[in-house]
């Protein structure tokens, strides 16, 4: 139900943008992919072990872990400088934690997106499903920039670099019990920062 509300909201925003746009809106469809290694992670959790002990674990620091992402996007360029997209796909956040994000993204083009190659900045944010559910309360946001090269009048290739932050409540891993079930978790919270470098191809 929560996913349904989210999708309806996103569709409403896109339709509203189209209604308020001054000129013709160009709808675009494409894909994003790239390399997004985790650089920093903070994790705090409190849980009961199988035999009833209360355990609190905390870790914080620089932690490199290889990750990537593959997203499919749909959106519109509302004028020469602004574009809005909805993106979803497959993304790794940290070790053994891969999600299906649902992101809203705004892009601003410095020289006007329909005039040719130009640099841009982008901001996106959203939520993510893990194993088909929102139970981990994963939220994501990223800020970055890139350069758009038009291959033709309707096809563009972007090179994008961005910093990504995420927050979620993952299940902790106990060295004796394994993955701790949610019924025994009192508190769990993780922050993660990643640096991402990727490409986008939009039609």
């Amino acid at each position, binding site marked *: 139900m929560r996913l349904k509300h989210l999708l309806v909201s996103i569709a409403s925003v896109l339709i509203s943008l189209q209604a308020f746009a001054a000129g013709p809106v160009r709808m675009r469809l494409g894909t994003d992919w790239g390399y997004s290694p985790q650089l920093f992670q903070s994790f705090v959790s409190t849980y009961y072990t199988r035999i009833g002990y209360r355990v609190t674990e905390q870790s914080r620091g620089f932690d490199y872990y*290889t990750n990537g992402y593959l997203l499919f996007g749909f959106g519109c360029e509302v004028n020469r400088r602004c574009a809005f997209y909805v993106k979803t796909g497959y993304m790794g956040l940290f*070790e053994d934690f*891969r999600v299906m994000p649902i992101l809203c993204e705004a892009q601003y083009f410095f020289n006007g997106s329909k005039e040719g190659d130009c640099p841009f900045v982008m901001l996106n944010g959203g939520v993510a499903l893990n194993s088909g559910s929102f139970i981990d309360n994963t939220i994501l946001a990223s800020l970055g920039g890139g350069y758009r*090269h038009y291959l*033709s*009048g*309707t*096809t563009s*290739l972007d090179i994008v670099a961005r910093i990504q932050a995420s927050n979620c409540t993952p299940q902790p891993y106990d060295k004796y019990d394994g993955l701790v079930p949610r019924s025994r978790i009192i508190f769990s919270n993780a922050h993660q920062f990643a640096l991402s470098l990727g490409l986008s*191809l939009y039609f």
Partner: protein
Amino acid sequence: MHLILVLLAFLAANPAAGQVRIARIGIVNSLKDMGLAVQTVENGSTGFNSYSLLINMDGVINGEESWPGAKMHWCHQEIIASRDFEDFHCFFYFGGGASGGFVRDFSTLQHSNPGMMASMTADAGVLLRYRGNIDIALDWYAEIGMHLRKDENYVDKYNLSWYANGLLHCWMPCLTIYCKF
């Protein structure tokens, strides 16, 4: 570094090296392999050769493994049809070649099974040539070969088997973004 040297030596050893020129250098993007590609053309020929240095992403994409395999891929491709559109030229091609490297293979056992692989490849795809200096190739390739590895259960023994991933992953498209010269 050794693989790069071998690749360059392979390029230099081409019998028609005097007439061959590097036409494009690109980045290979796929769920199965990622890496760098060099495309050469020969004067008067309708085909081209692609040489790729790839990292094999089997097990890495789904988080089961933390390090990828590596392989080299060569393919001779012939253009079989072309079509002009308003914004780009479209070339359909197919070809064959060889690949080899150190990769994992499909296994029903819960063990990692990296080993040496050597195979023949068949390749088909489309090259989109744009006005600027960027071209895009979308292709599919299958690999039929052998995989030599240490036995998953008995460390002192070796196993030689068909390289199953070469066929199991042939449906995955491979998008190469080329910068042309």
